[in-house]
């Protein structure tokens, strides 16, 4: 019991950046656009968040600017894939390379520098609840925001007019266009908004989680987020579940290392990646037969408005 609580609390913290990224990608993919450049966008977010916080002393500015920069960066992907009908897989890979390169280059002068960052803010009353209290309510502001965001994203997609448009555009863009919806506009908004969330996830890592900038600090979390979208079957609630699952493995792995074990560090560090594969396999087996609800029918396919058969 004594051991579990800190690990669970660490799991939540560890899973939060992935959660933001996964939520962002769910919004984007629901509209039919596949963005594989999450790793690059997260790194840019991490770096931007860090440097703005470092220069201005304000974490709020850091996070806000990171969000905006994420939107801007995804504009490239959006323009290429939506307006220029480019191959979405390749564009995502290009974004990964570009984001990795830019953050590395720009960040070289800041490696090892630290910032104040955001600290834990235990919620009065709620944080005293046994088990749930320390795990869920003794976290930082961004974690609390992420709880809210899970609901907000769910509500947005499934209960609003805009969400309806996103779902229609992602499943059957031709029908949406015939109903009078601009497929391009909806996809642009979904992609840009998604980019903001992803970048925010990256910024969380530098501004809140570790209070520093390290080259390539996301270590593949962007890719894990892509896998989690599938695991979550494009639903925000399950995305939270998946993210915390990953956070759990991260936290566990770090605990084991810190606890002085004979298992070599590289092997332990493989766990999240192995788990990602396992999770994908499980979800692929279980959805094997029968109609797969949730996957946008037109995911990854460019939409041509006046294309004749």
């Amino acid at each position: 019991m004594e051991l579990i609580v800190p690990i669970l609390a660490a799991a939540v913290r560890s899973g939060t950046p992935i959660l933001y990224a996964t939520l962002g990608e769910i919004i984007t993919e629901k509209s039919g656009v596949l963005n594989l450049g999450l790793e690059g966008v997260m790194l840019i977010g991490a770096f931007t968040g860090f440097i703005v916080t470092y220069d201005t002393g304000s974490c709020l500015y850091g996070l806000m600017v990171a969000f905006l920069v994420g939107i801007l960066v995804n504009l490239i992907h959006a323009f290429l894939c939506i307006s220029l009908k480019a191959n979405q897989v390749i564009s995502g890979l290009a974004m990964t390379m570009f984001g990795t390169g830019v953050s590395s280059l720009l960040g070289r002068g800041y490696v090892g520098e630290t910032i104040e960052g955001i600290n834990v803010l235990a919620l009065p009353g709620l944080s005293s609840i046994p088990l749930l209290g320390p795990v869920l309510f003794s976290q930082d502001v961004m974690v609390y925001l992420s709880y809210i965001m899970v609901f907000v994203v769910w509500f947005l997609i499934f209960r609003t007019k805009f969400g309806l448009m996103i779902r229609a555009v992602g499943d059957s863009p031709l029908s949406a266009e015939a109903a009078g919806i601009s497929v391009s506009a909806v996809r642009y908004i979904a992609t840009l908004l998604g980019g903001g969330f992803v970048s925010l996830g990256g910024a969380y890592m530098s501004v809140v989680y570790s209070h520093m900038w390290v080259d390539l600090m996301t270590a593949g979390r962007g890719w894990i987020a892509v896998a989690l979208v599938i695991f979550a079957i494009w639903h925000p609630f399950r995305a939270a579940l998946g993210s915390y699952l990953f956070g759990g493995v991260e936290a566990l792995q770090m605990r084991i290392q810190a606890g002085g074990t004979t298992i070599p560090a590289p092997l332990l560090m493989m766990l999240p990646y192995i788990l990602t594969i396992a999770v994908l396999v499980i979800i692929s087996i279980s959805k094997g037969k029968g109609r797969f609800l949730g996957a946008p029918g037109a995911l990854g396919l460019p939409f041509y408005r006046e294309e004749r058969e």
Partner: protein
Amino acid sequence: MKMRGITKSFYGMKANDCVDFDLRGGEVHALLGENGAGKSTLMSVLCGLYHPDEGTIEVEDQRVEFRSPRDAISRGIGIVHQHFMLVPSLTVWENLVLGSKDLPFVVNEDAICERIKDLSQRYGLDVDPSAPIWTLSIGEQQRVAILRMLYHEAKILILDEPTSVLTPQEIEHLFSTIKHMKKEGYGIIFISHKLREVFEISDRITVLRRGKVVGSLNAREATPEMLAEMMVGSSDTGEIPRTKKSPATKGKPILIAEGLVVRNDKGLVAVDGVSFTLREGQIFGIAGVSGNGQGELAEALAGMRRIESGKLYLVTEDVTSASARHMVDLGVKYVPADRKGVGLVPNMNVAENVALRKYWHSPYSKGFFIDWDEVHRHSKSLVESYEILTPGLDVPVRMLSGGNQQKLILARELSDNLRLLVAMQPTWGLDVKATAFVREKLMSARAEGAAVLLISEDLDELLALSDELAVIYRGKIMGILEGPGAGDIERIGLMMAGISSNS
């Protein structure tokens, strides 16, 4: 509504050439023409999906310009496309309100469903508003599409080939709904290539041919011959001559199906205990509204889909678990309904497509390599004997017209060792000339002693060509008629709707 001088081109070819078309309230104006004449293009312009290169549109005496379907919808234009344009994962009510201007940010499901139920009752279009589209039958989906037009208060209703997916009884029901709406003052544009229906339902008829208006007249003044002349240029009404004669003796059985059970992609049973016998020198037709298991049956016979239980025999050989390749080697050939999606590889050239179903044999392949020279030789002779119009053998087949693509598939499937041909919707979407060509090839295969399984939604075609006709409904054979004729249409229609002749 008036359309004047509408011109629209694709790839430099004019799909609509200076077309005039108008509509008055309270009338049904039919747009008639064969496949590829430009009817759907014209309507796509009218509903805002395409921008015309030239021409103007007026609605209620006001010039309008539609920058997108939204503009057209707001001007009261509604359309039921051939492929419905409904989003499968969304529910009925979600599809109906999609694109609505006055939809609040937070969507109120109950109020919307109320209104839908209201409209449903008024026009006799029964659907469950909370059902996801993918769970509905094709007939129900069409009702949803019609409801959508009414929900958006359209005044001009466009129906694009609405009868191709309906049973004869459902067509009756649709026509009475149309007459009801006519009385209420709606203007209805009825697009079709079927002469008989156009006669039955319309007040005025405009004929399109190769993108141009050939003529426009009142239905009362028209005769089938006149219309056929306008549509095709000859007074051949396209009615298929009943030149076949039933063979005096029945041919030997070549394919025996016993209690076939086949599942569809969703894991549900699509073919539910089907049994029949195909004989040499015979055309066996299967009628039925699409989605009742025909596709799965065809794929099972071609070896492309697993037969879960039951048996299939080719003469005496058990081929129940034979692979697609094995079936081809045994002489069972398949012309699929989806020309570009299954039958061909659109980005590959003619030769590569000809090789598709025989490349594993010599002389086309030797060991690990394909002998492309030999394939080219064979392709050349096929192109010549089937008169396939193509700029060359190295051209990607997506550049060929639909008719030529179908000819290519037929050429390939009929060319060697043909014992049984499974043909699924072989004339769908083809113009009159290509259609006649295909039917002729089916008849000649029959004359040469092959068995032909013809699956089609075109009842006229089935009645004219089949020696025996089965009707399939929800995966079961409702009945088999020998030597079917026009007098059987009512019975067939009932079977298509699930009412067996034995009940």
